[in-house]
């Protein structure tokens, strides 16, 4: 298991991409909804992190610290694209001036509509899953990710890690078991 207490000396930018890129990406993508923008923001976050490395006080984990930088980058991003006056005006709502009448049905919320809240909750679930994956042995987590999230062929993974298929399934089985336990502990309670 990774030690969550981080000393100043342990701030290790060389591992940032491997350790946090996926987490930051999943955090960003629901907020900006654009693959390219998300990558740019993550890149900017890492660079800003490098520059202000000496300001890191060790009060939080490295990841929390990076997320706090990322949040500001996301806000800046929206400021930037909204800066020309008028662009910031967003009309929300089904009704506009031209539509006549006000049917009750049109004003009621659609219960079956997939709301923004659901999307956010599912995203948080995703982040919780990544948290749990962090607690697995690194090789197990990597193989599980390849198989489950990136949907690589079993054969390909076996070749890459030089293991047999039954080996792979044992690893997948263990990973799934720990992951289910971890999620039940951290997410459903």
């Amino acid at each position: 298991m990774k030690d969550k207490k981080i000393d100043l000396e342990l701030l290790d930018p060389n591992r940032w991409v491997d350790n946090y890129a996926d987490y930051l990406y999943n955090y960003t993508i629901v907020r900006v909804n654009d693959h390219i923008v998300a990558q740019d923001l993550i890149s900017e976050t890492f660079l800003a992190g490098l520059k202000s490395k000496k300001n890191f006080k060790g009060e939080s984990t490295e990841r929390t610290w990076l997320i706090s930088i990322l949040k500001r980058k996301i806000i800046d991003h929206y400021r930037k694209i909204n800066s020309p006056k008028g662009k910031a005006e967003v009309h929300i709502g089904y009704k506009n001036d031209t539509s006549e009448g006000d049917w009750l049905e049109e004003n009621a919320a659609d219960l079956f509509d997939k709301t923004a809240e659901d999307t956010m909750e599912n995203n948080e679930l995703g982040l919780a899953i990544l948290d749990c994956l962090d607690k697995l042995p690194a090789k197990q987590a990597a193989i599980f990710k390849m198989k489950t999230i990136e949907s690589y062929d079993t054969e390909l993974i076996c070749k890459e890690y030089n293991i047999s298929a039954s080996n792979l399934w044992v690893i997948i089985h263990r990973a799934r078991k720990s992951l289910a336990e971890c999620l039940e502990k951290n997410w459903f309670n």
Partner: protein
Amino acid sequence: MKLFLKCDEAAHVCDKSQYKESSFLEKLNLKIHLLLCPLCRAHVKRNCTLTQNLHRSNLKTLRPEEKELLKKRMEDEINIGHNP
């Protein structure tokens, strides 16, 4: 052809099913095993919930080359910092 699976075999079929890699016969064997084995029933339920959650969370990872690009940008920045 065998009809009854042992628990570890059932678990293996269940894992494969999560990736849609089990055959019809295997699934049938699993169903028969589940009728007889409450412990495996609990396990399968859990395993399926996990699959649903993974699906629902819509997790994505960056491609390896995209990660390399991120690393490269950082390295460039570090090098600039060292030789101003």
